[in-house]
């Protein structure tokens, strides 16, 4: 066990998998010599050679497409899209191709590829370095969508994603790459080393996809969150004085519906938190699932605390970001309903 940041944990996952399996290779913009703009692939080129960790042309379509071809050949490529905001040129290849090749060929060809992308705001990145496009993937049959919240989960989930025989969208909450930011801007920044989930084994371990984790037990209200928002939700729960249960979904598709239903059945109340724009965000699907499964247990309307339906603004970033006070307000409303 070593204390790792999320960056280090992701780097370690790649390192472990590249050393175990020569079919694993990784590429993307600035991923090679430089080690990635967020340094997730640092030292991998030096260790495994330029043929296993290399720079790609600035063409996300080509990055995804060549990875699909490699996966169809039998390799397990892991690609990095430099920012999730830049995945759109790759969207057709991911949605129309990677997601459907197993189905349309009736299993003749498969695409065991992993698409890593840093997502989310809170870094003053403006509208093209802050987006949370998870719902654009959860709508697509054939894709799995994974979002870790801690270094420990990041490594274990990335290893599972690489080992998975289907394409996995692996969204990395860049706001917590280097420390567990909880949305309290006034408090001093905590390093990961102070957080128990930064204790990460150096070797191989896997966390199964499709399993949520209850990160705070509580009886009065369920908060569903993922990525950065898990930390913010925990802070909100703490500050609110409400006995809230916080569930870190970890995998969005297939989602751990059992964990959700179990919790909401117990609490009867639910708040959903995400950073993406509200309309047709993944929170809508969670709302639909909860009300389909727990209608008779629900004592109040489910509330969504989300990014607003605007592009991610630069100057007003902290007004846009779902902070603990915004979540607490929603929790109160739900408790008082």
């Amino acid at each position, binding site marked *: 066990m070593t204390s790792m940041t999320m960056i280090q944990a992701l780097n370690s996952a790649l390192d472990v998998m590249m050393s175990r399996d020569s079919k694993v290779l990784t590429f993307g913009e600035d991923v090679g010599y430089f080690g990635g703009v967020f340094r997730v692939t640092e030292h991998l080129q030096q260790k495994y050679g330029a043929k296993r960790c290399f720079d790609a042309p600035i063409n996300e379509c080509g990055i995804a497409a060549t990875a699909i071809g490699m996966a169809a*050949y039998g390799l397990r490529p892991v690609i990095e899209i430099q920012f999730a905001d830049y995945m759109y040129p790759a969207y057709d290849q991911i949605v129309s191709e990677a997601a459907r090749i197993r189905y349309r060929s009736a299993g003749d060809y498969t695409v065991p590829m992993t698409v890593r992308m840093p997502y989310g705001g809170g870094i003053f990145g403006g509208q093209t370095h802050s987006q949370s496009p998870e719902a654009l993937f959860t709508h697509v*049959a054939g894709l799995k969508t994974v979002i870790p919240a801690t270094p420990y989960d990041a490594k274990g989930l990335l290893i599972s994603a690489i080992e998975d025989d289907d394409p996995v969208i692996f969204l990395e909450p860049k706001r917590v790459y280097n420390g567990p930011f909880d949305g309290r801007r006034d408090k001093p920044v905590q390093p990961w080393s102070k957080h128990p989930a930064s204790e990460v084994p150096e070797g191989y371990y896997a966390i199964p996809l499709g399993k949520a984790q209850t990160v705070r037990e509580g009886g009065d209200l369920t908060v569903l969150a993922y990525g950065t928002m898990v930390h913010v939700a925990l802070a909100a729960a703490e500050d609110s004085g409400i006995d809230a249960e916080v569930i870190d979904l970890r995998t969005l598709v297939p989602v751990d519906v059992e964990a959700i239903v179990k919790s909401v059945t117990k609490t009867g109340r639910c708040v959903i938190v995400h950073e993406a724009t509200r309309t047709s965000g993944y929170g809508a699907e969670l709302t639909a699932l909860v009300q389909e499964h727990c209608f008779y247990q629900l004592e109040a309307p489910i509330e969504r605390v989300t990014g607003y339906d605007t592009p991610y603004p630069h100057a007003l970033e902290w007004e846009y970001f779902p902070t603990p006070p915004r979540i607490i307000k929603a929790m109160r409303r739900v408790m008082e309903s």
Partner: protein
Amino acid sequence: MTVRRANAFDLHVPAPRARPGDKPDFSDWSFPEPGDTPRPEVDAPAAELRDFAYGLIRVLDLGGSAQGPWAPRLGADALRRAMKSMLLTRAFDERMHRAQRQGKTSFYMQCQGEEAISIAQATALAPDDMCFPSYRQQGILIARGYPLVDMMHQIYSNRLDPMKGRQLPVMYSSKKYGFFTISGNLATQVPQAVGWAMASAYSGDGRIAAAWLGEGSTAEGDFHAAMTFAGVYRAPVIVNVVNNQWAISSFQGIAGGENTTFAARGVGYGVPALRVDGNDFLAVYAVTQWAAERARSNLGPTLIEHFTYRAGPHSTSDDPARYRPADEARAWPLGDPIERLKAHLVGLGEWSEEQHRIAQEEAIEIVRAAGRDAEKVGVLGVEGAHEIGSMFEDVYKDMPWHLKRQREEAGA
């Protein structure tokens, strides 16, 4: 400072030479003579090969003799085999086009006039080289001996369809035959082929990849991605642009053919590019062999423009007489690929009118027999051909809870 000339402008919208009602006239077109184009070494630097993108490699003259340095050494047996594959392909297309008209399936696409391309290329490639085709390379499967009846099962989406009825007709897939699952989205397969070739280079197994796309599809960004990656990583891949002059109703000028050739696209990336008479079996074979040898020698990608003509409709969904002269195909100055190979074989004394007639009849009979077998299994729309539950399989390797639940909901 340059002078402003207001209203000097005009938005140029390209228009084809002839529309319905016009007489097709190619009399002002000229081509290099068969045999006139030199054959460079496969390791010639790309910069020395630029002119090939603007010429036209031809081997067969219109009388059927093979000319010049590109004339391949191919035995008569191989040529007759190829001829039979071409006849089979044409017979297959005719029958399946008709089957769609008879309501036996929803859709069909012929490759009439373009048979030389896939069949010469399948002949030039190794059987385990990997093909990433568009929807008009059925000839590859046929040349490689994939069972016709399985193609028909696919077209009929019947119980024995290897794709379990999931895909539109003609969207074949066969890993065993080195044929990648066809996509309905144009050009997506081209950068995938490059990735496959990169993986092959990475793994050092000696197989190369080839991709096909129409001249209209070169406009897609995926083509640019493919050329960029192929060039940068020197992937062992052949990118084939089949310039059959039409993209549904749009003539090749709408894809940029007014300004330069499609082979010239390769020049733009510093990738060697050859332009070949796509109706000339021997020329297509020869350039493919050259490109394959380049790739196998670790010299990287080649672009080939096959200059041909789509003699049939785009698909069963359109009527080309609405947008081009009905007799344009007949006026095509470079003839019909089957007739041209036939003239060659006859000229060699290795084939005769009679043998041709018999081969044609045999092809029709083989297709008819396969058709009977396939129709016995079923045509599109037979209830219960696929049990409902199969719809939920293969979305993922293991079925997740929500698909299980939906399968139940569907009563499966």
